[in-house]
Structure formats: C-alpha cells, structure tokens
C-alpha cells in the first residue's frame, strides 16, 4: 500500500496535534491499485495507481466541516487543519451534529493477503495471457477487467479512537461474444487471496455461455418463473438490503411504510417469504469486509431471518433521538442457500427463464421498491426442467421485495461481482415465481 501502517499512525497523530477545534476525526485511505482492461482479445489499458486521500472533520460545538486532500507534507497538513477549522467556524450549527465516536474494540479484519499484496504487477498482466489465448483459440471475442487493490484505511479521532485496517482484493470479470450468432456470456470472481483466483474457470464459464447463447429466439414477455444466477440475485437483493433503514420508515418515506399498519413497527414482522434470510458478517471468509463502519463495530447481524425483518440501519443521531442503539449499514451481504446445484434448480422449473446477469438496475417507484433492469449476456428458456435454448433479452420491472416473497428454492452461495458494484456479496442462485418480464430487448 502507498502508506505503511506506522506512517499512517504518525500522520494521524500529527494532524490531531495540529487541531485546536473542539473535536476532530481523521480518515486516511491509501491504496496501490492495478487495473488491466482488455477488449477484442487484447489488453486495451494497463494502469498502476498509487493513491492516498486524507480527510479531516473538525467541530466547534455543533458546527463542523470536512476537508480532504491528497497532500501530506507538513505545510499541506497545516493548510488542511486551517481550512477545516475556518470552514467549521463558518458553518451554521447542526442540531443533529454528533461528537466523534468513542474508542471501541474491533475484531481484526480478515480481508488481507500478503500473497496478493506482494504479487508483481507484471505477473498480474501475465495471468491474463492463457485466458485471452484460450478465447482466441475458441474463436470468441473477449473483453474484461482485472483489478487488484492493496489498500489501507485508518480512522482516528480526538476522543482517542484509532483503528487501522488493511485489505486486499482481486476482482475479475470477462465478457465473451461470438462473432456470429450474437452469443454473449459473462462471468466473474472476487477474492481476497490470489491463491483462490481461478481466471481460467471464469473464462471457460463466460465462453461456454457465449457459445450456448448464439441465435436467441424471441419469447413473449410476461410474468414467469425464473432461475436467477447469483450475479442477478446479488444486485436485486442488495437494492433492498441498502434500504433497510430506520429513519426513512419513522419519517414515513420508506417502502416499509406501506407494509405495516400506521403506528406498527416493522421489526419482527413477517414481511418476506419464509425462506428469505439476509445477514452481514465482516468475519465470514466467504466475503469479508472491514470490521467497523466510521468507527462503529460491525458484527454479525441478521437483517431478515426466515422472512421476518430483524434489523434496520440506524444512524447515531437518529438512534439517540429514538432511544435506540446505533446500527451501522452492512459491509457485506450473506445469503444462505439450500445447496441445490444450478441444474437441480433448473430441473424444478417446467416453463420459465434462466437469467444469468442483469444490468442497469434503476428505481422506478420508491413506495414499492419497484426497479427496472435488463437481462444480458446469456438468457435461456427452461422447458420441462431442462435448458431449452437461448432467448432474447428482456426488460423487467420487479420489486426485490416481491423476489424475497416468491423464493421457491435456492442453490449454493458464491461470491460474484455485481453489474455496477463490487460490494462483497455471497449469495445463492434462486428460483423465483411470478417475475415480471415486461418487454423484449434486441440487445445481445
């Protein structure tokens, strides 16, 4: 990483020493990142990025301001502190301002690998060679992205809190397309330790889907039973997970408000199907993450358990106002499964669709959590428990709430990247009834 742990500590101490305000919080984010993109079976850009960002929030009573910079020399630090203090003095009082968090004990994060941190950048470029050469041999065009991040995050404040955590991550995704027949397939992986990295398997999966999805036929849209692969599940379920919040509900502007009677609390209510369970746990090796969020410990938290709502995220101010303990937003998503193979899930469907990836998920209606999106990179008909050939892509309009109410069966959880997010998630494929495919997309 761009800054050693000792240097980050020294930097935090120095800044806190310079601050004359009532309170101060310093956050340092530093990373050595490598990004390799490829397209048309050749590397299109290869980048090494050494970045650091230093953020300081200072407060005078209920006035506060935040200033961020990339500079760390002594003059820059003095400037940073001066600017933050000047701005904070000018800021109006915020009745919801909260003092810095108190020191706490944090579990040691497990999202670090020396092997990943020490891999030579040139070697990482070389990892792609067999994948791209395999694609060339298979006669498909591939485009993809390999990113290796080696970073550290340090948080310190004037209340005595100091926490430092390091993380490594490698993400890889690949799209394979056939020159003829409009076939397309996508696959991904995300690991902490490069020992677990299997780029070839990802490549084979994407190429296999591309070849299998050639010459798709149109199938009428409508509500139908679908098998959602894990990549689709994570995008839809995360949409709901991030909206499990106390304050919007209390203020009457959450999707939860329409699910309970006025004056009733949603916690404990059976709002979802019996088989819906969502957890977060920073120490689960399947998808580890930091063990704190802005200085609040992250621990294993059930959000939905067997269909009942178990937790809502609560910010520090709202928690104090409502007399509740604060609950940080989750740092990862874990969703247990039934352990069925994808073939077994497909085997349960008499007439339906296998959706392998979704795209461009956007909110249509916050009251019902209705979202729209599209299938892409391999969509297949299911007939009598077997895959029955590729079909054209669909636009869907569906609520993740309904998805968690209509789970029929689930498979083996796995860690995959999202279409627009690398939030750590370990989720199973699902069979979902009555999924609203609203129109056909000509994209392939």
């Amino acid at each position: 990483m761009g800054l050693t742990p000792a240097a980050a500590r020294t930097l935090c101490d120095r800044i806190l020493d310079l601050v004359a305000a009532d309170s101060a919080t310093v956050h340092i984010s530093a990373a050595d990142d490598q990004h390799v993109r490829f397209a048309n079976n050749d590397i299109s850009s290869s980048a090494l990025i050494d970045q650091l960002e230093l953020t300081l929030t200072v407060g005078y009573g209920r006035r506060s301001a935040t200033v961020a910079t990339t500079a760390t020399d002594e003059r820059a630090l003095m400037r940073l502190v001066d600017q933050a203090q000047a701005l904070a003095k000018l800021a109006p009082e915020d009745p919801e301002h909260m003092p810095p968090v108190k020191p706490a004990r944090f579990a040691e994060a497990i999202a670090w690998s020396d092997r990943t941190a020490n891999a030579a950048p040139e070697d990482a470029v070389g990892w792609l060679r067999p994948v791209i050469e395999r694609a060339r041999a298979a006669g498909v065009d591939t485009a993809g992205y390999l990113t290796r991040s080696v970073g550290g995050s340090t948080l310190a404040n004037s209340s005595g809190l100091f926490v430092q955590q390091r993380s490594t991550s490698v993400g890889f995704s690949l799209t394979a397309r056939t020159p003829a027949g409009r076939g397309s397939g996508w696959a991904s992986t995300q690991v902490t330790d490069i020992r677990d990295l299997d780029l070839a398997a990802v490549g084979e999966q994407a190429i296999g889907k591309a070849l299998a999805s050639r010459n798709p036929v149109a199938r009428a849209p409508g509500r139908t039973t679908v098998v959602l692969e894990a990549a689709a599940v994570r995008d839809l379920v995360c949409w709901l997970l991030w909206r499990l919040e106390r304050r919007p509900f209390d203020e009457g502007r959450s999707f939860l408000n329409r699910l309970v009677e006025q004056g009733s609390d949603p916690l404990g209510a059976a709002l979802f199907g019996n088989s819906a369970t969502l957890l977060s746990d920073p120490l689960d090796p399947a998808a580890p993450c930091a063990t704190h969020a802005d200085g609040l410990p992250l621990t294993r938290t059930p959000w939905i358990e067997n269909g009942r709502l178990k937790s809502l995220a609560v910010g520090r101010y709202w928690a104090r106002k409502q007399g509740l303990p604060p609950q940080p937003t989750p740092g990862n998503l874990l969703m247990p499964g039934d352990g069925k193979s994808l073939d077994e899930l497909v085997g349960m469907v008499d007439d339906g669709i296998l959706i392998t990836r979704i795209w461009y998920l956007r909110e249509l209606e916050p009251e019902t959590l209705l979202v729209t999106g599209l299938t892409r990179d391999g969509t297949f008909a299911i007939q009598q428990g077997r895959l029955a050939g590729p079909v054209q892509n669909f636009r869907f309009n569906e609520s993740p709430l309904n998805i968690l109410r209509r789970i029929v069966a689930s498979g083996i959880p796995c860690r995959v990247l999202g279409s627009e997010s690398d939030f750590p998630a370990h989720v199973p494929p699902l069979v979902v009834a009555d999924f609203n495919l609203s129109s056909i997309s000509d994209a392939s």
Partner: protein
Amino acid sequence: MQRRDWFKHVSVAGLALAAGRWQVTTARAAGIADVFSSLADSALGKATALGASFADLHVMQSDSESLFVREEMVQGVRADSTLGCSVRVLVNGAWGFAASTDLSVAGVVRLAESAVAIARAQAGWRGQPVEIETLPAHSARWEQPVDVDPFTVPLEEKVERLLAISGAARVAGADFCTVGLQQVRERKWLANSFGSRIEQTRIRVAPTFTATVTDPKTGRFASRDSLAPPRGAGWEHPRDWDFIAEATLAVEQAREKMAAPSVTPGRKDLVIAPSNLWLTIHETVGHPTELDRALGYEANFAGTSFCTPDKLDRLQYGSELVTIRADRTASQGLATTAFDDDGVETAGKEFPIIERGVFRNFQTALGQAALIGRAGSNACAYADGFAAFPLQRMPNISLQPGPDPAVTVADLIAGVDDGIYIEGNGSWSIDQQRYNFQFTGTVFHRITGGRLDGMLRDVAYQGNSVDFWNACDGLGGAAACELRGAFHCGKGQPPQAAPVSHAAVPARFRGVNVLNTAAEAGGRAGAAGGACNGGSLRRWA
C-alpha cells in the same frame, strides 16, 4: 437556528480566512505551472528513452466544494482538493499508465518507468498493436469563462441561498426538503511527446433540491426534484435560477402527484420538455454513438452498440426533423474545453451525429478514427482525475431546433389529442446495446384535446431508440432551446464520471409505449406467494 442567526457568531477574521481558503489551491496551481515544464521534460524524456513511441504527462488539480442542507439544518460543508499526475506511454503497440500524488521530478520519472514496464509485460502475446495518429503540437492556456468564480463567493452567501430554498419549500408545506450545491474546478496540465504543452481550467456547478410530502395514513409519499440543470458556469447560475418560486411549485406538484390519477397504459403521443429529453438524447444517441463502445472496447461493462460502423450514412436514426450535433465549444457546456485530454483542439471539431435523421458520425478519441477509415480524433477524450486513463467521452450533444423558430411547447401540445407532457427526470434504464430504453420523469401532465388537463402518476415511457426518434414529428423553435446536462455520466472500468451538456428543444413523439409502473409492481407491493400467470414450476421445493 434560523438562517441569519449564525452569522453573528462568526468573527470577521473567520470570514476572511474562509473566504481565502481556495486561494491556497490557486497558489499551488501557480507552483505547478512553474515546474510543469521540467516535470514534462523529465517524464517524457524518460519514457521515450525507454522505448515509448508516444508519451504524455497529465497533472490535474481538482477542487470541489459541496454544501448540503436538510430542512433547516446545514449538515454538510465539505471541501476536497486532489492533486496528482500520470504518465501514459505507448510501447510496441501497447498502452502503459502509472499515476501517483508524487509531483517531484524523481516521482514522474518513476511513473514513466512503471508505465513502460507494465506496457512491456504484454510483449510476446499481443495481437493487434495500438496505432495512433500524429497530433499537431499546441502551446496554449485556456480558462472557462464564468461571471462569478464560485470559489470566491463567501460560504455564508451560498448557505443563505440554500436555506432560503429549503425555507420556501417548508413554508409551502413540504414535510422534508434537501438542498445541495456542488462546485468543481478542474485544472489540468498536459504535455505530450508531439510537443504540446497545454494548461486549462474548467468550472462547473450543480444546484439541486428535492421536496417531499408524505401521507402517514396511507403510507404514500411523493417527491419532486428541482428541474435546474448543472452548468459549466459560475455562481451566477445558482444565484439567478428562480429556486424560490420553483420550490413552492415543487411542493404543489408533489401533492398533486400523490393524488393524481394513475395513467392508463398504452400507445400515446408524448410532448417531452428539454428537462426530460436531454437524458433521452444522452442515453439513446450519446452513448450508442461512442466509437469505442461500437467496436467492443466497453463490452464488459457499459456494453456495445446497435449503432455499428456499417450503419454510417445509412441508418435512418430519426425522422427528417431530427438533427443532433456534437461540440465541445458551447457556452456553459459541461463538456466544453479548448483541448481534449489527448491534446486535440476542439475548435473546428464540431460535428453532426444525426443529420436530418441520418446517422453521420461517431465520437472518437486518439487512435480510434482510423479503425473505421476516418481522419483523426474529433476531440472527445476525457479523464476524470489525475489517476484516470483518458477515455472517449461524450462531448456536448444537442438536438437542434425545428425549422420554425416560432414553435413553442404549447404549439406542440396543441397537436395532441390524448397524450402526456413530461418534465424533469426520474428513472432511466437502457440495455447494453442501447435498443430498449425505459424512462420516467418528474412531472407528468395529461394532454386532452390539445390542452393540459391535470397531472398523472405512475408513468414510464419505453421504446426502441431508433423507432423513438423516427416517431418525432414536432420540434420547438430556437427560442424554446434549453441547455441541460449531467454532472456525473459513468463509463469505463474503473468507472469514471464525466460532465456533459445537452441542449434540447421540446419535442413531440407519436405513439410511444406508456407503462403504468404501479401495475408493473403488481399492485400494492404484491402479495406473498403471488400466483404465476405465466410460466410454472416443475416441482416446488
């Protein structure tokens, strides 16, 4: 605390210090200008000595300030300043790139070495070499003209403005109101091995607000966002936009929206205001005509395009009324600049994308135009930070006014018997080849017999990009043209955000598919275990 009360707590010295806070970054920029030439000579000299056939050095300082008001509370006062540099090299037909915050001569030399090494790592198994055109050398300095540099405006004046907007919404009956202001200044220094040395400064602002009303009895709620666009402008833009009147109107419209009748789905005629249409232009014309997408370079994330090179000069993209042009020179344009991030001059590079309905041009960056047999880049490269590899990004892309300069939005509405007039943006989504889009809006007005007839809710319009533009049969005149745009258009891996403007006139489209989003949701959030009306399970678990 009332909005004026806090001023009296602020000392004169404090005001002076805060007002001068951005002078520090200006001074830092001046320092870079002093040393840039030696940094460039060192970095480019090292890169070429190590075998690079092309190299460039980018130094970028990005200053931003964001303010956030929630109801009567100022909850976010934040200033960010990033400064760093990158070296991009082309070695044996392979790109290499390295970036850091170390702006020393030794630092940029190390970047050149790293970039060359990472490019050479592809040796022995590369397929097609990257080839680029030779660019003219420029020595230039350019600053975006603004009336009032927002970084010189006292914080208290901005906070006062934001609190006044929230106050107006609350007086009008908003249960909640958030107001935000973002201002960005990009300073870029570019040197390349063709001999260019360019310094540029761009400024932009994005004022926003959202007013929300709730009905605790039903659990319903509705929001109405401001229709104010972001601009490549200074403080004059948020200062002069009539937010106070708009905040009051927004609350009225949010209430009306919550109680409005739900739309009957089906084919309808639409009149679309520039405040909504700009995003439709962006998604259905802007992104599909990016050449890197069309050639597969974004296939893994943003996608490819239905608009392939074989369709140039052949595809009837829209009706004869439709002409859409690209530029990086428009006044207050968010993509406006004198040189793109490859060092290509933008003046004289304006071009039609659609001309009288026919597809004419792709957007290109360095090394792309020759791939489709066209002469050099049309100046569409952009990098969103010092650590960002330059990509082909959208210029300002604008729908040209109709032939009759006197046509107003009312004239377009008068030509609709049963339809909808749509203002503002809501949700947007489009497939990875840009065929199937679905958009909502902020406010939907029913049109009956050529007149507005109250509001509707639950509206989304969905279609195919080419069919949609071919269904255009009416355009407003030049007087109805408005400059709209996006502060953060996403593309690339890792994702980069680019600012871009779209000028548009109101336009009329015939027979567009309109959906009812409440019906799409399956009624009231759906019932547990809802029955399938299509598809079935072989056996339930």
